[in-house]
Protein backbone atom coordinates (compact mmCIF):
# COMPACT_ATOMS: atom_id res chain seq x y z
CA UNK A 1 0.00 0.00 0.00
CA UNK A 2 1.19 3.50 -0.56
CA UNK A 3 -0.49 6.39 -2.26
CA UNK A 4 0.15 10.07 -2.00
CA UNK A 5 -1.32 11.06 1.36
CA UNK A 6 -1.18 14.80 1.78
CA UNK A 7 -4.32 16.51 2.82
CA UNK A 8 -6.28 16.27 6.08
CA UNK A 9 -10.06 16.57 6.04
CA UNK A 10 -10.10 19.88 7.87
CA UNK A 11 -13.84 20.30 7.70
CA UNK A 12 -14.62 17.34 9.89
CA UNK A 13 -11.72 17.69 12.27
CA UNK A 14 -12.24 19.91 15.26
CA UNK A 15 -9.01 20.28 17.19
CA UNK A 16 -10.40 23.20 19.19
CA UNK A 17 -12.45 20.82 21.29
CA UNK A 18 -9.55 18.57 22.11
CA UNK A 19 -9.01 19.91 25.61
CA UNK A 20 -12.57 19.00 26.63
CA UNK A 21 -12.34 15.42 25.49
CA UNK A 22 -11.68 12.70 28.02
CA UNK A 23 -8.27 11.35 27.07
CA UNK A 24 -7.26 7.71 27.23
CA UNK A 25 -4.66 7.07 29.86
CA UNK A 26 -1.00 7.49 29.00
CA UNK A 27 -1.73 9.49 25.86
CA UNK A 28 -0.09 12.87 25.47
CA UNK A 29 -1.93 15.86 24.08
CA UNK A 30 0.32 15.76 20.99
CA UNK A 31 -0.58 12.15 20.41
CA UNK A 32 -4.29 12.84 20.71
CA UNK A 33 -4.08 15.72 18.25
CA UNK A 34 -3.21 13.17 15.63
CA UNK A 35 -6.61 11.49 16.19
CA UNK A 36 -9.11 14.28 16.69
CA UNK A 37 -12.30 12.35 15.83
CA UNK A 38 -14.08 10.47 18.55
CA UNK A 39 -17.51 9.37 19.70
CA UNK A 40 -18.32 6.99 16.82
CA UNK A 41 -17.58 3.29 16.61
CA UNK A 42 -15.09 2.11 13.99
CA UNK A 43 -17.90 0.25 12.19
CA UNK A 44 -20.11 3.34 11.96
CA UNK A 45 -17.31 5.43 10.54
CA UNK A 46 -16.35 2.75 8.03
CA UNK A 47 -19.94 2.64 6.79
CA UNK A 48 -20.06 6.42 6.38
CA UNK A 49 -16.84 6.38 4.33
CA UNK A 50 -18.11 3.51 2.18
CA UNK A 51 -21.48 5.17 1.68
CA UNK A 52 -19.88 8.49 0.72
CA UNK A 53 -17.49 6.66 -1.64
CA UNK A 54 -14.48 8.46 -0.13
CA UNK A 55 -10.89 7.83 -1.14
CA UNK A 56 -8.96 8.19 2.08
CA UNK A 57 -6.94 6.65 4.89
CA UNK A 58 -8.73 6.31 8.21
CA UNK A 59 -6.29 6.11 11.10
CA UNK A 60 -7.49 4.42 14.28
CA UNK A 61 -6.10 4.89 17.79
CA UNK A 62 -7.19 2.61 20.63
CA UNK A 63 -4.18 3.27 22.88
CA UNK A 64 -0.47 3.87 22.43
CA UNK A 65 0.16 0.18 21.73
CA UNK A 66 -2.86 -0.37 19.46
CA UNK A 67 -3.10 1.78 16.37
CA UNK A 68 -3.73 1.07 12.72
CA UNK A 69 -5.40 2.34 9.58
CA UNK A 70 -7.90 1.48 6.85
CA UNK A 71 -7.35 2.46 3.23
CA UNK A 72 -10.41 3.27 1.07
CA UNK A 73 -10.60 3.94 -2.65
CA UNK A 74 -13.96 5.30 -3.81
CA UNK A 75 -15.68 3.78 -0.82
CA UNK A 76 -14.18 0.30 -1.33
CA UNK A 77 -11.95 -1.02 1.45
CA UNK A 78 -8.61 -1.78 -0.20
CA UNK A 79 -6.32 -2.53 2.70
CA UNK A 80 -5.76 -2.18 6.41
CA UNK A 81 -2.78 -2.43 8.73
CA UNK A 82 -2.73 -3.02 12.47
CA UNK A 83 0.58 -3.82 14.14
CA UNK A 84 1.89 -6.99 12.51
CA UNK A 85 -1.48 -7.70 10.88
CA UNK A 86 -2.63 -6.49 7.50
CA UNK A 87 -5.50 -7.00 5.05
CA UNK A 88 -8.66 -8.73 6.31
CA UNK A 89 -7.13 -9.80 9.64
CA UNK A 90 -6.14 -6.26 10.51
CA UNK A 91 -9.57 -4.97 9.47
CA UNK A 92 -11.40 -7.51 11.62
CA UNK A 93 -9.18 -6.79 14.60
CA UNK A 94 -9.84 -3.05 14.43
CA UNK A 95 -13.56 -3.26 13.63
CA UNK A 96 -14.05 -4.82 17.06
CA UNK A 97 -12.37 -1.92 18.85
CA UNK A 98 -14.51 0.40 20.91
CA UNK A 99 -13.91 3.89 22.34
CA UNK A 100 -11.35 4.73 19.68
CA UNK A 101 -10.07 8.00 18.31
CA UNK A 102 -9.79 8.54 14.57
CA UNK A 103 -8.16 10.68 11.93
CA UNK A 104 -8.86 10.81 8.22
CA UNK A 105 -6.43 11.70 5.48
CA UNK A 106 -7.26 12.11 1.83
CA UNK A 107 -5.37 10.04 -0.77
CA UNK A 108 -4.61 12.26 -3.72
CA UNK A 109 -2.99 9.65 -5.93
CA UNK A 110 -4.35 6.09 -5.90
CA UNK A 111 -2.13 4.70 -8.65
CA UNK A 112 0.20 2.98 -6.18
CA UNK A 113 -2.54 1.68 -3.86
CA UNK A 114 -2.69 -2.12 -4.04
CA UNK A 115 -5.93 -3.88 -3.20
CA UNK A 116 -5.39 -6.51 -0.50
CA UNK A 117 -9.00 -6.89 0.66
CA UNK A 118 -11.58 -8.34 -1.72
CA UNK A 119 -14.31 -9.03 0.80
CA UNK A 120 -17.28 -6.72 1.03
CA UNK A 121 -17.06 -4.35 4.02
CA UNK A 122 -20.41 -5.54 5.37
CA UNK A 123 -19.15 -9.13 5.32
CA UNK A 124 -16.02 -8.17 7.23
CA UNK A 125 -18.09 -6.37 9.84
CA UNK A 126 -20.40 -9.34 10.26
CA UNK A 127 -17.47 -11.74 10.47
CA UNK A 128 -15.82 -9.54 13.09
CA UNK A 129 -19.10 -9.43 15.01
CA UNK A 130 -19.45 -13.21 14.75
CA UNK A 131 -15.91 -13.73 16.12
CA UNK A 132 -16.59 -11.38 19.00
CA UNK A 133 -19.84 -13.23 19.78
CA UNK A 134 -17.96 -16.53 19.71
CA UNK A 135 -15.46 -15.26 22.23
CA UNK A 136 -18.27 -14.06 24.47
CA UNK A 137 -20.17 -17.32 23.96
CA UNK A 138 -17.15 -19.38 25.02
CA UNK A 139 -16.84 -17.28 28.16
CA UNK A 140 -20.47 -17.77 28.98
CA UNK A 141 -20.63 -21.45 28.07
CA UNK A 142 -20.60 -22.71 31.64
CA UNK A 143 -23.42 -20.36 32.58
CA UNK A 144 -25.45 -21.43 29.54
CA UNK A 145 -25.60 -25.03 30.74
CA UNK A 146 -27.56 -23.79 33.74
CA UNK A 147 -30.11 -21.90 31.63
CA UNK A 148 -33.59 -23.30 31.01
CA UNK A 149 -35.33 -24.24 27.75
CA UNK A 150 -36.80 -20.78 27.39
CA UNK A 151 -33.32 -19.30 27.05
CA UNK A 152 -32.44 -21.79 24.34
CA UNK A 153 -35.55 -20.76 22.45
CA UNK A 154 -34.39 -17.16 22.75
CA UNK A 155 -31.05 -18.24 21.28
CA UNK A 156 -32.87 -19.74 18.29
CA UNK A 157 -34.67 -16.46 17.75
CA UNK A 158 -31.34 -14.63 17.85
CA UNK A 159 -29.88 -17.12 15.32
CA UNK A 160 -32.88 -16.45 13.11
CA UNK A 161 -32.23 -12.73 13.38
CA UNK A 162 -28.59 -13.24 12.42
CA UNK A 163 -29.67 -15.17 9.31
CA UNK A 164 -32.15 -12.44 8.42
CA UNK A 165 -29.42 -9.81 8.79
CA UNK A 166 -27.16 -11.75 6.44
CA UNK A 167 -29.91 -12.11 3.86
CA UNK A 168 -30.76 -8.42 4.19
CA UNK A 169 -27.12 -7.73 3.38
CA UNK A 170 -27.48 -9.76 0.16
CA UNK A 171 -30.58 -7.80 -0.83
CA UNK A 172 -28.85 -4.51 0.00
CA UNK A 173 -25.93 -5.53 -2.18
CA UNK A 174 -28.34 -6.33 -5.01
CA UNK A 175 -30.10 -3.01 -4.50
CA UNK A 176 -26.79 -1.15 -4.58
CA UNK A 177 -25.80 -2.82 -7.87
CA UNK A 178 -29.17 -2.48 -9.57
CA UNK A 179 -30.17 0.97 -8.30
CA UNK A 180 -33.77 1.87 -9.10
CA UNK A 181 -33.98 -1.02 -11.60
CA UNK A 182 -34.69 -3.29 -8.64
CA UNK A 183 -38.41 -3.08 -7.97
CA UNK A 184 -38.84 -5.77 -5.34
CA UNK A 185 -37.05 -8.78 -3.95
CA UNK A 186 -37.57 -11.37 -1.27
CA UNK A 187 -35.88 -14.48 0.10
CA UNK A 188 -37.89 -17.36 1.52
CA UNK A 189 -36.94 -20.50 3.40
CA UNK A 190 -38.59 -23.07 1.16
CA UNK A 191 -39.20 -25.90 3.63
CA UNK A 192 -40.36 -23.64 6.46
CA UNK A 193 -42.38 -21.46 4.09
CA UNK A 194 -41.02 -18.46 5.98
CA UNK A 195 -40.16 -15.12 4.39
CA UNK A 196 -36.68 -14.27 5.70
CA UNK A 197 -35.93 -10.97 3.99
CA UNK A 198 -37.61 -8.62 1.59
CA UNK A 199 -36.98 -5.37 -0.26
CA UNK A 200 -39.93 -3.26 -1.45
CA UNK A 201 -41.95 -6.43 -1.28
CA UNK A 202 -44.41 -7.78 1.20
CA UNK A 203 -44.61 -11.24 2.75
CA UNK A 204 -47.94 -12.02 1.02
CA UNK A 205 -46.41 -11.58 -2.45
CA UNK A 206 -43.36 -13.61 -1.50
CA UNK A 207 -45.56 -16.40 -0.16
CA UNK A 208 -47.69 -16.41 -3.32
CA UNK A 209 -44.51 -16.90 -5.37
CA UNK A 210 -43.56 -19.79 -3.09
CA UNK A 211 -46.99 -21.38 -3.64
CA UNK A 212 -46.41 -20.96 -7.37
CA UNK A 213 -43.08 -22.79 -7.35
CA UNK A 214 -44.49 -25.49 -5.09
CA UNK A 215 -47.31 -25.98 -7.59
CA UNK A 216 -44.85 -26.17 -10.48
CA UNK A 217 -42.60 -28.62 -8.62
CA UNK A 218 -45.48 -30.89 -7.69
CA UNK A 219 -46.94 -30.74 -11.18
CA UNK A 220 -43.66 -31.61 -12.85
CA UNK A 221 -42.82 -34.31 -10.36
CA UNK A 222 -46.23 -36.01 -10.38
CA UNK A 223 -47.44 -35.50 -13.92
CA UNK A 224 -44.33 -35.57 -16.11
CA UNK A 225 -41.15 -37.64 -16.27
CA UNK A 226 -39.17 -34.46 -15.45
CA UNK A 227 -38.35 -32.35 -12.40
CA UNK A 228 -38.53 -28.57 -12.19
CA UNK A 229 -35.10 -26.96 -12.49
CA UNK A 230 -33.73 -24.14 -10.37
CA UNK A 231 -35.21 -21.05 -11.97
CA UNK A 232 -38.19 -19.43 -13.62
CA UNK A 233 -38.18 -16.23 -15.68
CA UNK A 234 -41.40 -14.32 -16.28
CA UNK A 235 -41.91 -11.39 -18.56
CA UNK A 236 -44.29 -8.95 -16.87
CA UNK A 237 -46.14 -5.94 -18.21
CA UNK A 238 -44.72 -2.42 -17.66
CA UNK A 239 -41.18 -3.45 -18.65
CA UNK A 240 -40.72 -5.68 -15.64
CA UNK A 241 -39.26 -9.17 -15.30
CA UNK A 242 -39.67 -11.61 -12.44
CA UNK A 243 -36.83 -14.04 -11.83
CA UNK A 244 -37.35 -16.81 -9.30
CA UNK A 245 -34.24 -18.71 -8.21
CA UNK A 246 -34.24 -21.77 -6.02
CA UNK A 247 -30.85 -22.06 -4.33
CA UNK A 248 -30.66 -24.87 -1.80
CA UNK A 249 -33.11 -24.14 1.00
CA UNK A 250 -33.91 -20.65 -0.21
CA UNK A 251 -36.09 -19.17 -2.91
CA UNK A 252 -35.18 -15.74 -4.26
CA UNK A 253 -37.87 -13.66 -5.97
CA UNK A 254 -36.56 -10.67 -7.90
CA UNK A 255 -38.68 -8.19 -9.84
CA UNK A 256 -36.77 -5.60 -11.86
CA UNK A 257 -37.16 -3.08 -14.64
CA UNK A 258 -35.80 -4.84 -17.72
CA UNK A 259 -34.99 -1.61 -19.53
CA UNK A 260 -32.81 -0.21 -16.75
CA UNK A 261 -31.18 -3.59 -16.08
CA UNK A 262 -31.08 -6.35 -18.67
CA UNK A 263 -31.79 -9.97 -17.84
CA UNK A 264 -28.25 -10.76 -19.01
CA UNK A 265 -26.79 -8.25 -16.56
CA UNK A 266 -28.79 -9.77 -13.70
CA UNK A 267 -27.94 -13.37 -14.59
CA UNK A 268 -24.30 -12.93 -15.50
CA UNK A 269 -23.00 -10.10 -13.33
CA UNK A 270 -25.25 -9.26 -10.42
CA UNK A 271 -26.58 -12.64 -9.31
CA UNK A 272 -23.19 -14.43 -9.36
CA UNK A 273 -21.82 -11.65 -7.13
CA UNK A 274 -24.80 -11.80 -4.75
CA UNK A 275 -24.72 -15.62 -4.63
CA UNK A 276 -20.99 -15.54 -3.93
CA UNK A 277 -21.67 -13.21 -1.02
CA UNK A 278 -24.55 -15.43 0.07
CA UNK A 279 -22.32 -18.51 0.08
CA UNK A 280 -19.45 -16.73 1.82
CA UNK A 281 -21.77 -15.99 4.71
CA UNK A 282 -22.68 -19.69 5.06
CA UNK A 283 -26.38 -18.92 5.20
CA UNK A 284 -28.50 -21.88 6.22
Amino acid at each position, binding site marked *: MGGDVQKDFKLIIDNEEMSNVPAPEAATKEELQRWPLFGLSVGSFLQVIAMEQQTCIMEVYLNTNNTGHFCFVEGELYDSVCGDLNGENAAMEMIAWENVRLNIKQILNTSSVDRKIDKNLMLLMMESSRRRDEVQENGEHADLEMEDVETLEDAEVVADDVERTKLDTCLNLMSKDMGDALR*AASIINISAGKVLAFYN*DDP*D*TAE*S*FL*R*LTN*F*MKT*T*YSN*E*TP*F*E*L*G*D*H*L*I*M*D*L*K*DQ*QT*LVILMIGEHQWNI*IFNNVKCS*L*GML*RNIIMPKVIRTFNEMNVG
Partner: protein
Amino acid sequence: MNIQKVNVCMDILKKDLGEGFIASCIIMTEDGQVLVATDQANIAEATLLNDATAFIRNALKTYPAELGQYYYVDVAGTMAVLVIPFGDYQWTVTVNKKQVKLGLLLNVVLPAIINAFEDAVVS
Protein backbone atom coordinates in the same frame (compact mmCIF):
# COMPACT_ATOMS: atom_id res chain seq x y z
CA MET B 1 -56.73 -18.98 -37.71
CA ASN B 2 -54.69 -19.90 -40.78
CA ILE B 3 -53.33 -23.43 -40.15
CA GLN B 4 -50.84 -23.18 -43.00
CA LYS B 5 -49.38 -20.05 -41.41
CA VAL B 6 -49.24 -21.79 -38.05
CA ASN B 7 -47.22 -24.56 -39.66
CA VAL B 8 -44.96 -21.88 -41.11
CA CYS B 9 -44.46 -20.61 -37.52
CA MET B 10 -43.30 -24.06 -36.50
CA ASP B 11 -40.92 -24.16 -39.47
CA ILE B 12 -39.45 -20.80 -38.47
CA LEU B 13 -38.95 -22.11 -34.95
CA LYS B 14 -37.20 -25.30 -36.05
CA LYS B 15 -34.99 -23.38 -38.46
CA ASP B 16 -34.00 -20.69 -35.92
CA LEU B 17 -33.31 -23.11 -33.08
CA GLY B 18 -31.58 -25.78 -35.15
CA GLU B 19 -30.41 -28.73 -33.06
CA GLY B 20 -31.49 -26.96 -29.90
CA PHE B 21 -35.14 -27.45 -30.85
CA ILE B 22 -36.77 -30.40 -29.06
CA ALA B 23 -40.53 -30.00 -29.43
CA SER B 24 -43.38 -27.54 -29.70
CA CYS B 25 -47.09 -27.53 -29.14
CA ILE B 26 -49.96 -25.06 -29.44
CA ILE B 27 -53.05 -25.64 -27.33
CA MET B 28 -56.40 -23.93 -26.78
CA THR B 29 -56.33 -22.30 -23.33
CA GLU B 30 -60.03 -22.83 -22.72
CA ASP B 31 -60.09 -26.63 -22.87
CA GLY B 32 -56.42 -27.59 -23.13
CA GLN B 33 -56.96 -29.31 -26.49
CA VAL B 34 -53.96 -29.53 -28.82
CA LEU B 35 -54.10 -27.58 -32.08
CA VAL B 36 -50.64 -28.32 -33.45
CA ALA B 37 -47.81 -30.41 -32.04
CA THR B 38 -44.46 -31.62 -33.30
CA ASP B 39 -43.34 -35.25 -33.04
CA GLN B 40 -41.56 -35.10 -29.71
CA ALA B 41 -44.11 -32.81 -28.02
CA ASN B 42 -45.07 -33.73 -24.48
CA ILE B 43 -48.82 -33.07 -24.61
CA ALA B 44 -49.31 -33.71 -20.89
CA GLU B 45 -46.69 -31.11 -20.03
CA ALA B 46 -48.20 -28.56 -22.41
CA THR B 47 -51.64 -29.08 -20.85
CA LEU B 48 -50.24 -28.77 -17.32
CA LEU B 49 -48.48 -25.55 -18.27
CA ASN B 50 -51.88 -24.22 -19.30
CA ASP B 51 -52.94 -24.66 -15.65
CA ALA B 52 -49.61 -23.19 -14.54
CA THR B 53 -50.28 -20.02 -16.54
CA ALA B 54 -53.59 -19.54 -14.74
CA PHE B 55 -51.78 -20.11 -11.42
CA ILE B 56 -49.08 -17.57 -12.35
CA ARG B 57 -51.62 -14.92 -13.34
CA ASN B 58 -53.32 -15.39 -10.00
CA ALA B 59 -50.06 -15.32 -7.99
CA LEU B 60 -48.97 -12.10 -9.71
CA LYS B 61 -52.13 -10.31 -8.60
CA THR B 62 -50.77 -9.99 -5.06
CA TYR B 63 -47.70 -7.98 -6.20
CA PRO B 64 -49.60 -6.62 -8.27
CA ALA B 65 -48.36 -7.32 -11.81
CA GLU B 66 -49.59 -8.88 -15.01
CA LEU B 67 -47.93 -11.58 -17.04
CA GLY B 68 -46.30 -10.22 -20.21
CA GLN B 69 -45.43 -12.07 -23.42
CA TYR B 70 -43.76 -15.18 -22.07
CA TYR B 71 -42.35 -17.18 -19.20
CA TYR B 72 -39.40 -19.54 -19.17
CA VAL B 73 -39.27 -22.69 -17.08
CA ASP B 74 -35.93 -24.31 -16.29
CA VAL B 75 -36.30 -28.09 -16.20
CA ALA B 76 -33.74 -30.26 -14.37
CA GLY B 77 -31.26 -31.73 -16.85
CA THR B 78 -30.81 -30.26 -20.31
CA MET B 79 -34.31 -29.03 -21.08
CA ALA B 80 -36.11 -25.72 -20.69
CA VAL B 81 -39.57 -24.66 -21.79
CA LEU B 82 -40.58 -21.30 -23.20
CA VAL B 83 -44.30 -20.66 -22.73
CA ILE B 84 -46.02 -17.99 -24.80
CA PRO B 85 -49.64 -17.29 -23.84
CA PHE B 86 -51.62 -15.66 -26.70
CA GLY B 87 -55.11 -15.05 -25.34
CA ASP B 88 -57.11 -18.06 -26.52
CA TYR B 89 -53.97 -20.03 -27.37
CA GLN B 90 -50.80 -21.04 -25.58
CA TRP B 91 -47.61 -22.03 -27.34
CA THR B 92 -44.94 -24.09 -25.57
CA VAL B 93 -41.48 -24.49 -27.01
CA THR B 94 -39.14 -27.08 -25.49
CA VAL B 95 -35.45 -26.51 -26.11
CA ASN B 96 -32.12 -28.01 -25.22
CA LYS B 97 -30.77 -25.25 -22.99
CA LYS B 98 -27.21 -26.41 -23.54
CA GLN B 99 -27.56 -25.70 -27.24
CA VAL B 100 -29.85 -22.69 -27.28
CA LYS B 101 -28.59 -19.51 -25.69
CA LEU B 102 -31.25 -17.74 -23.62
CA GLY B 103 -30.40 -14.42 -25.26
CA LEU B 104 -30.99 -15.87 -28.74
CA LEU B 105 -34.24 -17.48 -27.66
CA LEU B 106 -35.70 -14.37 -26.01
CA ASN B 107 -34.30 -11.63 -28.22
CA VAL B 108 -34.29 -13.19 -31.68
CA VAL B 109 -36.54 -16.25 -31.89
CA LEU B 110 -39.34 -15.07 -29.62
CA PRO B 111 -40.10 -11.77 -31.43
CA ALA B 112 -40.00 -13.57 -34.80
CA ILE B 113 -42.46 -16.29 -33.83
CA ILE B 114 -44.77 -13.88 -32.01
CA ASN B 115 -45.08 -11.79 -35.18
CA ALA B 116 -45.63 -14.87 -37.31
CA PHE B 117 -48.21 -16.31 -34.92
CA GLU B 118 -50.16 -13.03 -34.67
CA ASP B 119 -50.29 -13.01 -38.45
CA ALA B 120 -51.55 -16.61 -38.46
CA VAL B 121 -54.24 -15.89 -35.84
CA VAL B 122 -55.75 -12.87 -37.64
CA SER B 123 -55.71 -14.56 -41.04
